[in-house]
């Protein structure tokens, strides 16, 4: 059972660990240096052996801790989840030790987190992009990245040489109905029409 005893036993002798809340599941906060020890302990001693999910949150450029890596573990014995927040210490070059040695499932999740947020997982066996192509220069899930995308060269250099094509931002900022979580929602009203072109200016294609 995940009860008070479980929590106090887990916290005992681990000063780097604290409980954030227990709303939907036990949520711990750990520092990056001890995350491998902690996860090995949880896997071997506490039956949290299924890595359900690994991802990150971008708190915005102004936040004191910009990137938080979030790990969800599941225990088949307790039938319960456990969440670990790991704050990345450096906002410019975020780095967290890789969990792929503890959970093979972390391999792809960490590649995706690296791909989308630019968080490096040290000691990862194959840290390269997984959803975007290898030469892609941006980290799309960072908050400053626009929804429409940014113009970049095509991944196939031989094709773009012949056609002159490249990857363009989406028209209408990514769709007619957009309401961003930044700023006031009423100012980001759903737009009904594409305002990037009018009768006077040609549509950019």
């Amino acid at each position, binding site marked *: 059972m995940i009860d008070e005893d479980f929590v106090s036993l887990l916290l005992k002798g681990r000063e780097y660990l604290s409980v954030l809340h227990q709303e939907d599941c036990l949520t711990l906060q750990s520092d990056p240096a001890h995350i491998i020890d902690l996860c090995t302990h949880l896997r071997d001693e506490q039956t949290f052996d299924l890595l359900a*999910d690994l991802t990150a949150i971008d708190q915005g450029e102004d936040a004191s801790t910009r990137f938080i890596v979030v790990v969800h573990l599941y225990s088949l014995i307790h039938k319960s989840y456990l969440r670990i927040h790991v704050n990345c210490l450096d906002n410019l070059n975020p780095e967290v030790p890789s969990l792929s040695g503890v959970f093979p499932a972390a391999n792809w999740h960490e590649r995706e987190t690296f791909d989308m947020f630019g968080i490096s997982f040290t000691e990862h066996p194959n840290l390269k992009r997984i959803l975007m192509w290898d030469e892609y220069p941006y980290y799309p899930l960072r908050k400053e990245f626009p929804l429409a995308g940014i113009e970049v060269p095509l991944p196939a250099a031989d094709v773009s040489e012949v056609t002159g094509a490249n990857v363009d931002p989406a028209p209408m900022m990514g769709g007619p109905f957009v309401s961003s979580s930044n700023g006031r929602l009423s100012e980001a009203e759903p737009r009904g029409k594409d305002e990037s072109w009018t009768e006077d200016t040609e549509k950019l294609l």
Partner: protein
Amino acid sequence: MSKTVKEVQIGDVGAQAASRMDGDRMALNVGPSHPTTHGVLRLIMELDGDLITRCEPVLGYLHRGDEKIAENMTYNQFVPYTDRLDYLAPLANNVAYAITVEKLAGIELPERCEAIRVLVCEMARISSHLLGMGVFGMDAGAWTPFMYTFTEREKLYSLFEELTGARFTTSYTRIGGVARDLPEGWLSKVEKFVDELPQAIDEVEKLLTRNRIFLDRTEGIGTISKEDAIAFGITGPNLRASGVDLDLRKDRPYSGYEKYEFDVPIGTRGDCYDRYLVRIEEVRQSILIIKQVIASMPGGLWYAEDAKKIFAPPKEQIMTNMEELIQNFMIVTEGPQIPPGEVYFEAENPKGALGFYLVSKGGGVPYRLKIRAPSFCNLSILEKLVPGHMLSDITVILGSLDFVMGECDR
């Protein structure tokens, strides 16, 4: 002994892969557009004769940035995007997403709404497994079962159409309820369908389950051990085929699943054949659940009436009452108001555990929505599973894993 194979450029993959002979090894590219891969999965394999010595999956050909999109629209606006995750079971995705947001908002749903959701989830499971079994037979060389399963899926699609207005992209749930109540007489049609379905399943079983060729092609192929299955985060029928008893409908019941009696089929060897057997049995169990839901379908409302800031009232009230008009206007323009916090919820979808990790900072738009796609995790074992098999086994292994790239790439 081990020679590294260079990354193949995207431009003229086929020609390059075919012409590259690296000593006695050959690099073979499969996909991204190939009937075996059931979508746009690409595999770069290193072959020693017919034996696969290395396999590297390449993903991302169907990446649409759903998580970025979610950060830029209100909660209800994202429902149609969930259709396009596992597009073979959109109803189950709708339900999983709605429950996640409702958990954070702390909404209690009426019994009827929960029962409707269980019903559509199980119908989605049947639909997805029928396709999974049909194309799996086809991957192993048996055309006919596919015809039987697709005839049944067609009937299901007609039922979905009557319920939601769409055959494929259903968008049936709203935060705090479902889009509309069950149409009159619809339940009896579902009952007729589940009464007739076992005969079609029996036909498929007659054609496949004891078929010598099918057995030879699937038994002992693509065996995943219990330990590997857990270590690689595999979920759903693929995990249960390896002998792990994990079904979130039983272990962490949601939407009232604890009220219904059903068994969870478990495999013993974890090979391709076991994965097929588990799916067949899951369809039979889903039929049982559907029958129980229909027999005990509660009356009452199909949306949470108390959740005034979350669920828009019925249309006739909006048109006649000022209060409801304002309520509807606020929900449409500002989005359902969800309190700040974080929540992680996994639902037992046909492909495995579909998880949503939602971070809210208040207001009508998610701050971060991570989609934990079962197909993504299930495919991550390919690098370990495929080497050591013959080239002809790759179709069977991929077919038995029953993945969907729309969900994998998001």
